[in-house]
């Protein structure tokens, strides 16, 4: 017998990308969840990109060539999902709303990723008083109701009323402040763990500078959990944005469409039995958050070998484990724990 191959042969980049590699690993129910999540997130993303083509009207359009839009018209005919009390077309606002949501997600997650990762790396690597202060501050912010914090920040930035970019940035920044402690915690914990690894020590012995060790050796290893955090935080960002909008801290209807704001306006309609103004933006929120959460959840499950479902032993050669008498026992063991 030749010596068993111990390491997996390197796969092409495409199949090593986070979601795609997870899709290959998954099986059965978990694969179903992941696929549904990817499809929902994909629809959300495509809708936001092609909103100008998909939406029948503009988000703040109140009339067309044939005159003003009727107010509170039931779904059907010219307005597929009806119109609001202000005369906006519900379908158009739902579609345009995805664009606002995507923008806020991108801006907020990019900002909190950057801040959280940098602070976490520095704090975890150098330790000392900086670390202690940052940990206490992050814990304090983490324990605080996120919505309250977001409200305070959005008052500071935009004082409530806002233009498109003003509103986007105030929402995104509020969400950032809430998220930074989470990224910080994860990256810091990983950094501390990695600092004790032999490869860091050998880099030190070789005379590598701190910047190089952090930037090259620790950064790449510490950021493995980020795809998971990204999807989970993206869904939380949408919920926070909608919450802010619902409380009246969102973006004015003339500057952009925002689902939370529309739901706030729809609340008054419910008592008279007008359901379409609230139900459709609400469904948009639920489906988007659902899609992103399903992707995040599946990645989480698949990253954890204890809860990951396995393919049957006979079907795949399991390149990671050397072929031998123990290998059939592995899946059984994994299933038990």
């Amino acid at each position, binding site marked *: 017998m030749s010596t068993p191959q111990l390491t997996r042969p390197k796969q092409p980049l495409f199949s090593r990308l986070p979601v795609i590699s997870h899709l290959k690993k998954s099986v059965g129910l978990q694969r179903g969840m992941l696929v549904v999540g990817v499809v929902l997130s994909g629809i959300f993303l495509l809708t936001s990109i092609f909103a100008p083509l998909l939406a029948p009207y503009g988000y703040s359009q109140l009339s067309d060539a044939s005159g003003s839009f009727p107010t509170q018209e039931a779904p059907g005919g010219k307005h597929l999902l009806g119109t609001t009390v202000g005369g906006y077309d519900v379908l158009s606002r739902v579609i345009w709303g995805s664009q606002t949501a995507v923008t806020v997600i991108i801006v907020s997650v990019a900002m909190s990723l950057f801040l959280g990762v940098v602070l976490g790396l520095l704090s975890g690597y150098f330790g000392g008083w900086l670390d202690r202060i940052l940990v206490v501050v992050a814990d304090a912010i983490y324990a605080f109701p996120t919505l*309250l914090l977001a409200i305070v920040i959005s008052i500071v930035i935009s004082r*409530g009323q806002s233009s498109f970019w003003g509103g986007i940035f105030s929402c995104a920044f509020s969400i950032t402040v809430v998220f930074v402690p989470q990224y910080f915690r994860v990256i810091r914990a990983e950094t501390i763990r990695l600092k004790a690894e032999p490869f860091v020590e050998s880099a030190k012995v070789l005379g590598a500078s701190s910047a190089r060790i952090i930037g090259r050796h620790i950064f790449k290893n510490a950021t493995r959990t980020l795809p998971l955090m990204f999807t989970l935080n993206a869904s939380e960002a949408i919920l926070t944005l909608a919450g802010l909008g619902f409380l009246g801290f969102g973006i004015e209807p003339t500057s952009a469409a925002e689902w939370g704001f529309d739901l706030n306006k729809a609340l008054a309609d419910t008592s008279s039995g007008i359901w379409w103004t609230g139900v459709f933006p*609400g469904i948009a929120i639920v489906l988007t958050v659902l899609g992103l959460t399903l992707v995040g959840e599946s990645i989480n499950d698949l990253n954890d070998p204890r809860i990951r479902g396995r393919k049957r032993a006979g079907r795949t050669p399991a390149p990671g484990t050397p072929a031998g008498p123990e290998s059939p026992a592995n899946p059984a063991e994994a299933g038990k724990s």
Partner: protein
Amino acid sequence: MTTLIEVPEAEPGIVAPKSKSAAGGGLGRYIVIRFFLIIPTVFILVTLVFFLMRVIGDPITASQGGRLPPDVLAQRIHDAGYDRPVLVQYFEYLGQLITGNFGTTITDRRPVVEVLTTFGAATLELSINALIVALAVGIPFGLIAAQHRDKTPDALLRFFAILCYATPVFFSGLLLKLTFSVWLGWFPVAGRASTRTELTMSALAAPTGIYWLDALRSGNFTALGDIASHAVLPAIALGLLTAGVFLRLVRTNVIGTLGKDYIEAGRSRGVSEFRLVTKHAYKPALIPIITVMGLQIALMLGGAILTETTFEWKGLGYQLVQYLNARDFVAVQGIVVLLAIIVAVTNFIVDIIAALIDPRVRY
């Protein structure tokens, strides 16, 4: 005392009494350390909120600017001391906080503490109701999911849990209102009670502010029915938000304990699967729930603000939004700081309870 006890026990081994005293001292020390950890948390939040709220200028201009002539405005700013250096105001504010003075609202000139005592009870009532719903839904469903792990019921319940998380409270509230109040007419659309009950409640001597408790104490059962019918929809809306978290937690933990040796031992003695799940695996799985409950309080408070706005439930969150819309930032700051303290203290209590139940938590 300790020496007297230690003497007879000296024989079995030195280790036993030693670890015993260490555990006792450990709990005391843990409580003290944990208590002092509240202070930096609250201090940081107070500082953060104070300076953030001052960045946008003084609160009087924010709420009254444009409504008052400039000289009156300047006079009021001067009277309130907002024209002094920010640091002086900050230390004065800290001093006031220590004496329990959270400031006076600008719009209706009420002490913030009074706002809390008036509206806090309503929020507490809503949170308790929601917690009952969350536990009543989360624990049994979590047990079912754990028992049927990786089968259809588990898949459906896990999907349900994610759906609970993905639905904002105000949307589930809106759906509940549409379905059960507007179309079916089973429950009232909004409010804590009908006007008549509210009047009866406020006429009570020494009310607790928690309506169902007051109604029970005064033996007024028509009022109790009215209150209950108002409470159902908000409690479900807010409760489902946390129910998903509980469901998943119970599921994961019960699956964890089901893999333990003592479960296997029980199974080999012929204990039924149902009994294994509901009795043997269930109790140890509850400990993490208590710990997580602490974290859920922050989530619930955030959810309560949205639920109260959806159902016009006149609690702290509803009031906070009113003050926000009136640009009364002294009130907002006061309520936010108070809520920060409440969250910190509840987290402390939850941690202590968790430490009492599970000695492994102490450090």
